[in-house]
């Protein structure tokens, strides 16, 4: 052996070949056995199993089999897909290893036209056809010992940050028996989407994504607007933009809540989801109930918030067409209650024309705000939110009232019935069912548009499968609320993971400040422009009778106004340009600092050094 080694070392070529072989084997073995051993440095621990997941897999009653189908060889030419597939393998393997044997994992590479491929198709997996006729699979089929079966047809890379959630959800969906009952009362077309039942009949039904998500986790039972009682086995009562209710129905809700029933209530001074082109506000209310619960929602008032305003595209595509719209709110971390177990894990919420909640003085309930406005807000008349709203006008009219309004809150603690007389008349004894008071536990939000897909989710069609990619945490928020209020919290931490958008806060601030600064100037100029235009039109209409031409004085005046018009327009353009220039200027300055600053310092240092050296040699 020693002889062989010495002969090898005497021949560099052989030695190098030996080293290359060693290198290849270490690389391949490393890829196989070291993967999954990693240190997660992301702020939100995106690559670490969360407590909710560990709890869920620890609570598994019976073994679950995971068949992970991954066409590794076919994915090789697509490095991103390959590493994504490996990441899924790693995650599933970690889940299996943490489950104490409850999760049995098979990683299967389905060869084209093999039995494995048939089984993958049978399990409901969807492959991606490649140009050479083969099909690439990257999906998971799960089954338990009973006959629960579920699958993730294809892992979409866009949902990479929700991988863990999707997997835990999959485990949860294996045992449907445990689903809680959610009773839903709504006037929104949640089940069929914007087209209503007609859309369903023509095969165009697109249910709200949130409705579909609720159905995945809950046994959702809708009650019609003429309901007479709340189903006895209800775990969570969800009221979203309710229709007008009569006293009997309100009393039913009152009693349900007082008897300890959990409820999530979403009311709205104007529901944009009901009819986006409405000329009249579409409000919803619960009559006397709110006051009994300890809050009031000012009727016909919509909250405008300059600091939370979403930037929207209004008519056209130029840079000027993007405006802050004060009725569409983009709620960030700072306006969500960080201490609350639900809102603490939500990063963003998109709301539209919301109302506000005001605690009633002397109420016995506790109002815990979940969502609040910024202090740069005020209440507008709801009529300003309908028809064709004017974002600039609204922004101009907004005079901050300095209050942080409550948009959503938890209401809990002792409350009295809103119908004390009925309790006495209808149910003289407590045994008969009527109660005059009780401890309530519910969440009330002054917006129902957060359910509408267009405000929070991008729905894509991926090979016949609807794929929902959230742009805000509305879904997490509602699901977490329902989950939390129904008592199961295992999935709580998972949902909001990874939606963190990290914008340039500085630039957004600047934009807002610049907007506020230039808006008054812009307004003055616009008024000037209008009056000049008007004056010009008047003059041009005043051709003296019997004459076809203007008098020289008139012509001079017309000319003057024309010049003024042109100049005002120019000034207006200038103002808008300045608005943008400030932000662009910052970009240029930052680019300069990052590109040139250190190099300049380096050159100076080099020159200084050379100078010192020359002085020394000269000396």
């Amino acid at each position: 052996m020693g002889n062989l080694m010495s002969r090898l070392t005497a021949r560099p070529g052989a030695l190098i070949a030996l080293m290359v072989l060693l290198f290849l084997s270490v690389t391949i073995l490393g890829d196989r056995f070291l993967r999954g051993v990693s240190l997660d440095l992301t702020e939100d621990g995106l690559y670490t199993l969360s407590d909710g997941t560990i709890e869920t897999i620890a609570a598994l009653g019976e073994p679950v089999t995971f068949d992970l189908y991954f066409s590794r060889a076919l994915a090789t030419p697509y490095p991103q897909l390959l590493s994504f597939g490996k990441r899924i393998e790693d995650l599933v393997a970690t889940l299996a290893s943490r489950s104490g044997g409850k999760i049995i994992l098979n990683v299967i590479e389905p060869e084209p036209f093999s039995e494995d491929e048939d089984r993958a198709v049978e399990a409901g997996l969807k492959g991606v056809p490649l140009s050479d006729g083969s099909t690439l699979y990257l999906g998971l089929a799960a089954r338990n010992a009973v006959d629960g079966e579920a699958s993730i047809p294809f892992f979409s890379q866009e949902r990479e940050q929700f991988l863990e959630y999707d997997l835990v959800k999959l485990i949860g969906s294996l045992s449907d028996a445990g689903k809680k009952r959610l009773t839903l009362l709504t006037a929104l077309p949640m089940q069929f989407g914007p087209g209503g039942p007609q859309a369903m009949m023509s095969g165009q039904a697109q249910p709200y994504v949130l409705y579909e998500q609720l159905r995945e986790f809950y046994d959702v039972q809708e009650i019609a607007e003429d309901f007479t009682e709340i189903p006895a086995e209800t775990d969570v009562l969800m009221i979203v933009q309710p229709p007008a209710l009569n006293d009997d129905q309100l009393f039913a809700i009152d009693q349900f809540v007082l008897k300890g029933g959990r409820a999530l209530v979403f009311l709205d001074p104007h529901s944009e989801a009901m009819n986006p082109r409405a000329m009249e506000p579409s409000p919803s209310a619960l009559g006397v109930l709110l006051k009994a619960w300890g809050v009031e929602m000012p009727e016909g008032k919509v909250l405008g918030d300059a600091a939370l305003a979403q930037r929207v595209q209004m008519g056209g595509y130029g840079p000027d067409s993007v405006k802050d719209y004060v009725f569409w709110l983009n709620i960030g971390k700072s306006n969500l209650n960080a201490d609350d177990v639900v809102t603490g894990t939500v990063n963003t919420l998109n709301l539209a024309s919301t109302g506000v909640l005001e605690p009633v003085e002397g109420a016995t309930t506790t109002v815990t705000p979940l969502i609040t406005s910024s202090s740069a807000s005020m209440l507008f008349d709801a009529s300003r939110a309908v028809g064709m709203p004017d974002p600039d006008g609204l922004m101009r009219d907004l005079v901050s009232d300095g209050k942080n309004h409550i948009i959503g809150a938890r209401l809990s603690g002792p409350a009295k019935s809103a119908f004390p007389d009925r309790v006495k008349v209808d149910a003289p004894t407590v045994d008969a069912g009527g109660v005059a008071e009780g401890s309530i536990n519910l969440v009330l939000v002054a917006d129902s548009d957060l359910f509408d897909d267009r405000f929070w989710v991008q729905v894509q069609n991926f090979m016949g499968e609807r794929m929902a990619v959230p742009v805000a945490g509305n879904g997490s928020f509602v699901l977490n609320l329902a989950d939390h209020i129904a008592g199961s919290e295992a999935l709580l931490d998972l949902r909001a993971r990874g939606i963190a958008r990290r914008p340039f806060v500085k630039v957004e601030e600047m934009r807002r400040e610049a907007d506020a600064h230039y808006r008054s100037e812009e307004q003055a100029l616009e008024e000037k422009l209008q009056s000049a235009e008007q004056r010009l039109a008047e003059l041009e209409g005043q051709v003296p009778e019997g004459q076809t031409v203007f008098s020289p004085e008139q012509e001079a005046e017309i000319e003057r106004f024309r010049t003024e018009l042109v100049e005002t327009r120019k000034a207006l353009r200038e103002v808008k340009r300045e608005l943008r220039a400030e932000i662009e200027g910052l970009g240029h300055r930052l680019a300069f600092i990052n590109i040139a600053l250190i190099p300049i310092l380096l050159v100076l240092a080099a020159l200084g050094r050379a100078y010192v050296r020359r002085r020394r040699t000269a000396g």
Partner: protein
Amino acid sequence: MKDMMTIFRREFASYFATPLAYVFLVIFLVMQGLFTFYVGQFYEREQADLVSFFAYHPWLYLFLVPAIGMRLWAEERKSGTLELLLTLPVNTGAVIAGKYLAAFAFTGLALAMTLPIWITVNWLGDPDNGVIVTGYLGSLLMAGAYLAIAAAMSALTKNQVVAFILAVSVCFLFMVSGLPMVLDTAGGLLPGPLVGMVADLSFLAHFENLQKGVVGLSDVVYFLTVIALWLGINRVIVESKREAG
């Protein structure tokens, strides 16, 4: 160890003996700034991350790191000091490690000078600094791998330009082996598992893994193995020259 540190100090100081080091640093910093801001649209994206900063590192290093590494051995051979160095009672391994570490420290210095971009992104928004840390780590490891290749190539020849061209070529192979078009072509010629192996060898895949905020042991081990391999080759070449020389 002591020998290695002596060599390291001598080598590292020698970088700054000529204006070359400054020229190199300036080029690197200006290039990375231009790529980040104008090609990667760092500011226009308005996203508080350094994706557009790290994305161009594999390509920047492809030319700049061989430029650092080309003189490591070629210069010594040309000026005839290599023989002198090797006759000293110093272990060849210590010489190789010392020289490599000096060049590596220089590369690290260049990377450290990009600190303003990190400050910038933190001033502009609220980035995930964990992701940036792993990004820098990945970048440094990849630079180290490029540098080991450049060092070995430098030992092959007396001519720095030839060393540079050789190093760029080998680095290029290591990088493109992960590109879709290369793998697609390879797929037609090689059996599946071998194509997978070629893909595993690419700098790009391992570099990208490290851009996500997770330090995977397999990625770190990969870069360290690449460095070990080329430093090993470097040693074989130097020793065979000593025997031949």
